[in-house]
């Protein structure tokens, strides 16, 4: 697991990363940062997502693709190299996008949708197990704990990007540059610390 790290190569010309979560968690900023990292690494990159109603607490998904040359901004079913889920349930909602034995990174946070109470559909309790039916590479991240240790729970998206960075071949300075470009100027240092903490925290857990 420690050695699993995706790089753009002749044999693996495109890398697909799907990020999912709940409106307000910072999924869109995180995927913006990954696209910028790829661009700084001199790669082509695209991402796609849908705005609008999702802002009202709905499920949010952002698809990132990078490589030598990218055409479609959408990931095909069964071809995502990585799913980064900001919330547990949102990891399995898009699990069919994962390629066989891809990587699933799950933030250990449960945000219960209203339908659990109003329609009595239970919140699945065996999310990690379900993911393991598709891949052996499942990593749980205690994102909120790490973000709180850094000093601000709102840096969760940088923490999760830090965890993600362990599995994607990019120079660290590309990440740092992209974070600085995309987060509010006053929070750059904090987000960089959160990224580092996520990068380390993940290794100690994985």
């Amino acid at each position, binding site marked *: 697991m420690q050695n699993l790290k995706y790089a753009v190569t002749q044999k693996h010309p495109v890398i697909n990363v799907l990020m999912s979560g709940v409106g307000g968690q910072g999924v869109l900023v995180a995927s*913006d940062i990954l696209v910028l990292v790829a661009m700084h690494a001199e790669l082509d990159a*695209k991402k796609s997502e849908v*705005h*609008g109603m999702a*802002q*009202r607490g709905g499920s949010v998904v952002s698809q990132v693709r990078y490589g030598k040359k990218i*055409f479609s901004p959408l990931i*095909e079913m069964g071809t995502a190299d990585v799913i980064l889920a900001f919330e547990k349930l949102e990891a399995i909602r898009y699990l069919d996008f994962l390629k066989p034995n891809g990587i699933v990174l799950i933030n250990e946070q449960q945000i219960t*949708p209203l339908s659990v109470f109003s329609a009595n559909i239970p919140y*699945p309790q065996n999310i990690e197990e379900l993911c393991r039916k598709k891949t052996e590479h499942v990593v749980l991240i205690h994102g909120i704990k790490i973000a709180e240790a850094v000093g601000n729970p709102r840096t969760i998206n940088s923490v999760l990007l830090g965890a993600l960075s362990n599995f994607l071949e990019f120079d660290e300075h590309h990440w740092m540059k992209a974070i600085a470009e995309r987060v509010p100027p006053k929070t750059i240092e904090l987000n960089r610390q959160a990224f580092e903490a996520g990068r380390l925290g993940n290794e100690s857990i994985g």
Partner: protein
Amino acid sequence: MEKTILSGNEAIARGFYEAGGLFASAYPGTPSTEILENIGQYAEIQAQWAPNEKVALEVAAGAALGGARSLAAMKHVGLNVAADPLFSMSYQGVNAGIVIVSADDPSMHSSQNEQDNRWYARSAKIPMLEPSDSQEAKQFTIAALEISEQFDTPVLLRTTTRVNHSKSIVLLNERAAIESKEYKKDFAKNVLLPTNARKKHVFVEQRLKNLEEFANDCQWNRIEWGEKSLGIITSGISYQYVKEVFPHASILKLGLSHPLPKKLIREFADQVEKLVVIEELDPFLEEQIAAMGILVEGKNRLPNIGELNSDIISEAFGLKSSAGASVLNDVPIPPRPPVLCPGCSHRGIFYAMKRLKLTVMGDIGCYTLAAIPPLEIMDTCICMGASIGYAEGVEKASGEKLKGKLIGVIGDSTFYHSGITGLIDIVYNQAKTKICILDNQITAMTGHQENPSSGLTLKKAPTNKVDLEALCRAMGIKRVVKVDPYKINETIATLKAEMAADEPSVIIADAPCIIRARKVFSEPYFVDPEKCIMCGMCHKVGCPAIEKDENGKTKINELLCIGCDICRQVCKPQAIQKPVG
């Protein structure tokens, strides 16, 4: 040259800036909203929100007539509203260039229909450009203004959600030094009296022929030769999917897709063994190519419903079958649809209507969420402003049956957009319709854009506010009352009184959007589990902050609750409590 990552909408804004654009107007609508928001960041450009798309287009067209390169942006259904000026502007032509952006929404991510607005270009007889990524969104915006001036025509820039909301790399250029033109009085061109309009129609038909010649040779229509066994004609986002699925095929990519470059299409068709059109939604290109007498495939394989993607195209051409059984087949995944925010003022008014068992004609905004569980109180959602006409029409058809029980509900922004004329109809035709205007003083659903009731312009400068109450009275509505929708009993009492009136009434639910106002009423509320009898009343208000604990008793999520007090008011056993101090 500097490169950056832009969404399609950001790229359109950038293109307009680089092209020397001077004036832009829009009404917000997903997926087009961010175009004007981004144009608004350029100090050199006057950018403003209009109350609706017709006004946006008319003001932009006026600015173009006045000599400024102009832009009007809207979602696909917005072009229906703006269609009236569009068709006649086509006859008139332009002074400075104008580009009209139509952002279509295949798959209806945030829309009430998925009409294909390419037909507008054809029926209004104007040129259309279809970008396939952000770089093209920028280039085509610039090209649209050039074509507009060269051919004396408005130009349609037709995008789809996947272009508007995807991000890709864009190369940036400087702003061109384009001088604004002089306004010129020109009776034959600008006064579409029949005598002039008849001559202008001749001009329009000749212009289409000239544009077709241009389309045959222009850089935006290109052939990418590959193997000649398969030739694909495509445009817009579909091009990107085609490149994924058929990397070796020959492709004719149409950037300027109306009028069709017929000569180029024949050349291409003559050299490939099999010809296929891959396009989203309607067979817009396919039917025209078939009408040229060319054998072509397309919608016999591809769906005309919803977005395309590489998976759908691969399956349609037998290149892959649906992936095997999902590992999730046996696991019900609770859906997570959008919900009214914790503390939203709409919750109180709809709860009150539910208590009174009203029949509600609905409209378009965040409040349309009242149509879905658990509120389920809104019976219709059709188009902007329809709540008012529908309420009047149902009243006239149903006679006594729904008397005192029928109401139309509309937001402030939607009312200014298309509700005012409906209210005039109620007065003029002596209806007794009751209308509730949810005045949260912002266009909330599309992401909090300013509007005539917010007191700020698009560029956030202070401006005049429409006096909603005075406006309704001036139209002839005698009963206009305001309610505070956070006070449930008062709201119910007011609604009851107004519903009983033997004349029309407007009830204004007067409360700013709490997200916009960043309002927090109090510390989070809490539940006394001893008192909770699990009656479920609090769950019926549909607040995301109201959860259940392991025993099924109500629990309030402290991270989400902003203390709006609505759940406390509906809790009969008084288990839900406000924190002291």
